[in-house]
């Protein structure tokens, strides 16, 4: 971010000065967003935090909708994070529809509708979580497993390349790509398929495949011995979300999903590296620098695939470079991002029975594995103690905001043989109410290192949209009933709410054009979890789908 484009938004010299200091001191690796929202996680540190403060605690109740944009496809919901570069918004919706939109007016600049094959039969369904923008291009991954580069100005396709035949791997792309220097890095789904996972980087200019890192080591590679027999060929390890990048360390971080078959682990005895791990790669070569495995030999379908939040904080009085990752099993793992050393682990859900806890060295204590051929109660459910929707880190409060879900499942595990490109799951399950208290969700503010909870916002239903925090000391998110709302970042008190008419499963952002701050959110109920929720909440089956982008700003007199 060029500091010359920063506009003081608060008419207070003191505030302006504070902002300047903030900008100057963070400029080496600016982890906050300013006018733009250039990357999936805001910046590549995945903070989802903006330094904009025109909209703040004192005036958020005057926020108004200024435009809305319809994508035209409600199938699977609206799961994306919009990006904004130089006042232009780039957003993807289900079935790989890409739009460039004027950020001030909501007027479409161009659209690109990718033609997926009709006979697609995608087992990971039609949603997409977004695009990457850089080098004058817009990149996306497709449902039939291609990476596509578009001209940023016109939307014209420049190149496209197949990642792997989707019929072969039972995988495709739903996550947003990440641009690192001259490469675009793309993960794939496939964690619930007979599939060997990987992460692939392509040259942004030509589409040339630059490297591929296999998340399951092959014969002769270190870690291969953690897989019994041929299980490594079908062991999952999907890279279905988006990673992070630390330019100072030149390390690319990516979360790796569950091992397959998800619940039946007898045929893959061993720790099953690098499933359920955070991997740190050299982005130039794709070589592994370090890894940290959160769950050795996962038999619960608990991915480590969610966002890798790169933050610096004091640990026992010593400043450390940290990486925070919320595991689907409901524990947050914090590690040293220079070397993968375990720092701490703390829960985001109350109903957890698959382990008793995590010890001071990061070992899982009291593993409770679902027995084969029997039905057992596991908490949290397969939907997770938290879902993939991302948390947010505010450097102003120093807190991490994230959701938690209280629910369990009855799971019946059965032996299963891998079938190429097919589901490889090893169980059936049904959702059950939790052991303690009602089923539901909550959004909480935590100390990122210790997990100390400062406030909790309860929700009748699991909250399945990402959080956005801002220098206006606000936390934005949406709920399944369609409300988009703002909480006071310091107290959790609800300050503003707007009914968008369809549930929230995407990720809100904020940006600024010509001195006016905007908050944008996808609204559109859908996704695997939305489909599962009627098992516990039958009324949610009739929650309306949608796919609309809502954009809010303050009226002139309130700015």
């Amino acid at each position, binding site marked *: 971010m060029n500091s010359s484009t920063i506009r003081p938004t608060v008419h207070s010299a003191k505030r302006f000065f504070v902002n300047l200091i903030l900008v100057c001191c963070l400029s080496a690796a600016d982890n906050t967003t300013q006018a733009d929202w250039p990357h999936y996680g805001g910046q590549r540190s995945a903070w989802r935090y903006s330094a904009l403060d025109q909209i703040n605690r004192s005036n958020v109740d005057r926020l108004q909708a200024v435009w809305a944009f319809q994508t035209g496809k409600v199938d699977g919901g609206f799961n994306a994070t919009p990006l904004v570069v130089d006042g232009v918004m780039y957003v993807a919706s289900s079935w790989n529809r890409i739009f460039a939109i004027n950020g001030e007016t909501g007027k479409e600049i161009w659209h690109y509708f990718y033609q997926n094959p009709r006979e697609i039969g995608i087992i990971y369904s039609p949603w997409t979580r977004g695009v990457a923008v850089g080098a004058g291009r817009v990149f996306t991954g497709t449902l039939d497993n291609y990476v596509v580069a578009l001209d940023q100005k016109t939307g014209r396709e420049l190149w496209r390349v197949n990642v792997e035949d989707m019929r*072969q791997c039972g995988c495709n792309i739903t996550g947003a790509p990440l641009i690192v220097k001259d490469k675009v890095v793309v993960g794939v789904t496939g964690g619930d398929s007979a599939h060997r996972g990987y992460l692939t980087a392509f040259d942004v200019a030509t589409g040339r495949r630059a490297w591929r890192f296999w998340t399951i080591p092959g014969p002769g590679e270190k870690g291969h011995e953690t897989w019994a027999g041929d299980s490594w060929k079908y062991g999952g390890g999907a890279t279905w979300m988006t990673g992070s990048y630390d330019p100072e360390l030149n390390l690319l971080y990516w979360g790796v999903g569950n091992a397959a078959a998800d619940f039946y682990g007898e045929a893959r005895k061993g720790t099953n590296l690098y499933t359920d791990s955070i991997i740190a790669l050299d982005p130039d070569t794709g070589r592994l620098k370090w890894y940290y495995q959160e769950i050795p030999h996962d038999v619960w379908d608990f991915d480590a695939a969610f966002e890798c939040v790169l933050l610096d904080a004091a640990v026992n009085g010593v400043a450390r470079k940290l990486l925070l990752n919320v595991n689907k099993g409901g524990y947050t793992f914090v590690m040293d991002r220079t070397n993968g050393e375990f720092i701490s682990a703390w829960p985001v859900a109350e109903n957890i029975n698959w382990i008793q806890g995590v010890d001071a060295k990061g070992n899982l204590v009291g593993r409770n594995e679902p027995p084969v051929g029997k039905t057992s109660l596991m908490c949290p459910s397969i939907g997770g103690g938290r879902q993939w929707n991302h948390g947010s880190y505010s450097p102003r409060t120093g807190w991490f905001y994230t959701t938690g879900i209280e629910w369990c499942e009855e799971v019946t595990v059965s032996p299963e043989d891998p079938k190429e490109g097919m589901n490889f799951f090893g169980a059936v399950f049904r959702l059950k109410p939790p052991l303690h208290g009602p089923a539901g969700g909550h959004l909480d503010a935590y100390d990122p290192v210790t997990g100390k909870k400062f406030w909790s916002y309860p929700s009748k239903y699991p909250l399945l949209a990402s959080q956005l925090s801002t220098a206006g000391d606000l936390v934005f998110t949406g709920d399944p009933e369609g409300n988009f709302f703002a909480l006071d970042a310091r107290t959790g008190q609800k300050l503003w709410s707007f009914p968008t008419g369809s549930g929230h499963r995407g990720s809100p952002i904020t940006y600024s054009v010509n001195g006016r701050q905007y908050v944008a959110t996808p609204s559109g109920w859908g996704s695997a979890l939305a489909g599962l929720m*009627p098992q516990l909440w039958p009324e949610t089956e009739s929650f309306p789908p949608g796919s609309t982008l809502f954009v809010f700003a303050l009226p002139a007199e309130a700015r």
Partner: protein
Amino acid sequence: MIALALLLAQSAAVPAAVARGEQIFAQNCSVGYCHGVAGAAGRGPRLRGRSFSKDYLYNMTRDGIPSSAMPAWKDRLKDEDIRAVVEYVASLASATDPAPPVNPMPPGAGPAALPSFKGPAAAARGRELFFDPAHENCGVCHAVGGRGIAVGPDLTGKQQIALSDIESTRSRHVLMAKLKNEEEFCALPGERDENQVRLYDLTLAPPVLRSFARSEVTSLVPTPAWRHIDFVRDYSRTELEAIVVYLRWAATGK
């Protein structure tokens, strides 16, 4: 007595198909996040407590639903098993409980899916090599039997294929593309598009489909510069022979 026995046999026969269908459904349709246990809903729609005609269920299960997440199961399940699933799903119409109990599946009650490859061992080895995702494999440029990316010729049914074809140094299909910026590359034409020229760049592996404005491409002519043999150097001669065995088997079943 005979009539009663017949009646009993008939009534037992229907639940047997339903029971079989229940097992197949559990391992193929409930799994992951699809239709949920006993059709209770997931990312796929709820089937429990809803009425569908058996013809509709059969056609949709066999052929899939175009432009949707529902795959065609005719390539994955035997016809009799698709029919068993139809019987089972039809039996769910009268279910009223939203969260049915789970029936533990006995160990060994395996799925009834078609084996992914039915050929002899030699062909199986060739197939593995053809599609080996850990290498720059044949499948990134050729399709066989509905697998692989058909950038180059689809090799399904090519029973005359020989090692000499794989080691060939000529192609009738490959063109030399020259761009206005003087870049040159060996190319195969991509899908037709009125507004632009689409070319697979064969200098890259896997090949990249590049799109150009018509004015960007100055010439596109057959070329002797491209040699197939350069793209199979990852494979030994024995491995290439195994691939030939596979391709012939795929074409002839022998």
